[in-house]
């Protein structure tokens, strides 16, 4: 690229930056806290309910996760989860119900292209990277642990 075109581009980039509205951080953080907090409080209530049953600690965690995942999917199916996220942002995206939403939303969307090449193939189009890099991360961390503590550690 010739120099003047490059200069024109970087000058315009500055204009764009100057005109980009600042996100409303205080409002966004407050809403994320409220929405995320509400989801976590609900999960805690579910956790407490399962704790009252004769389950091991691991089983209580698993049952709580499964319940919140199922709830996330149902609320997505009812068309409410995206409205929750529109206001709550990361407060709705980070809990496991948000992860459930990414899969359900994609499944609903691509169902129209058929169960095989649509839903089946594209269900993990958003969640896929989280799973892939979650697994890769887990593998690397385990390798490091093995290197220091050995198999028995």
């Amino acid at each position, binding site marked *: 690229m010739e120099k003047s075109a490059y200069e024109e581009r970087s000058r315009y980039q500055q204009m764009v930056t100057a*005109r980009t*509205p600042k996100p409303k951080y205080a409002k966004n953080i407050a809403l994320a806290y409220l929405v995320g907090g509400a989801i976590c409080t609900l999960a805690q209530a579910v956790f407490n309910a399962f704790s009252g049953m004769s389950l091991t600690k691991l089983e209580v965690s698993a049952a709580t996760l499964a319940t919140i995942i199922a709830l996330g999917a149902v609320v997505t199916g009812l068309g409410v989860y*995206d409205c929750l996220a529109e206001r709550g942002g990361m407060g709705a995206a980070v809990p496991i119900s948000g992860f459930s939403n*990414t899969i359900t*939303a994609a499944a609903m*969307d691509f169902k129209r292209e058929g169960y095989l090449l649509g839903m089946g193939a594209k269900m993990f189009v*958003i969640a896929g990277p989280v799973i892939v890099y979650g697994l890769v991360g887990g593998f690397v961390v385990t390798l490091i642990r093995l290197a220091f503590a050995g198999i028995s550690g």
Partner: protein
Amino acid sequence: MAQKRMGAQTIVFGKPPKIIASATLAGPKERDGNFGDYIDTIVDEPMMQEATAEKAERKMLYQVIQESLAKTALQESDINYYIGGDLLNQIISSSYCARDLGIPFIGIYGACSSMVEGLGLGAVMVDGDFADNVLIATSSHYHASERQFRYPIELNIQHKQTSQWTVSGAAAGILTHQGEGPKITHITFGKVVDLGVKQPDLLGAAMAPAASDTLCQHFADTNTTPGDYDLILTGDLGSMGQQLFVDLVKEAGYTLGTKHKDTGADFYKPHQRAGAGGSGCACIALGIMGYVIKEMYQGKYHKILALATGALFSPLSYQQGDSISGIAHGVVIDNT
């Protein structure tokens, strides 16, 4: 130089074609916006009782074309050419609609600038005596565009303040010499301009340089100034894009002031959570075929310049790191 050319990029029509009929159709969110009163037909259900958003969009398009024909004495067989485009891959809304119409079809893609691109091409055909009657129609649909360009509808994302909301609707116009209606006197086809904006949620910023480029070229070609028009209507720059556009035009020496309106920025009301405003092929199409034409008949506007903007990119190109190019076409509509 060819007789009907003016300056570097502008065509001036010898026998200006008239828009003898126009029709507009949109959904409930559009009805509740600022242009709601200018839309002929409101559909309560944006999915149009169809199984998919893509089918809903083409149904909207088909219906608006029928409504535009119904306002004239013309039959489908009287239309020589149907020029149209939309945002969906391979312009499926327009081509499937053309299949059902049986009118010779010229498919175009200018993203959200398609309506003015079509009006320009149609006017060239009518003025040049290559056609008696030409139909121009474009459409867009929020659900269909979201799926193609962004994310699944129900996904947990927060729209940014700068991102825009695709207008669900369609508009059509019929160009001919016979009958009465506002005239198309000039068309300035624009260059593709790219100043390196890469974020797909800053489409207004990506298109503003193209809009400014075409506008200044139009003023130079036709030896006019903003004072010669009652309204300069840009397409879908949105609230942020229109500020950049005004800044760029000012640097080039033109002050637009209250003459300028942006269809996208004005489309929805602030409480409608539409980010920086409306966008899509239906945005300026509803602006021209609804707002402008109706206000011309009311006598509010006599001569306007509509500057439709389009962002030329695909999800593939921005994921590969390419910047987003913009284009703008300007058309002069005169009812004096």
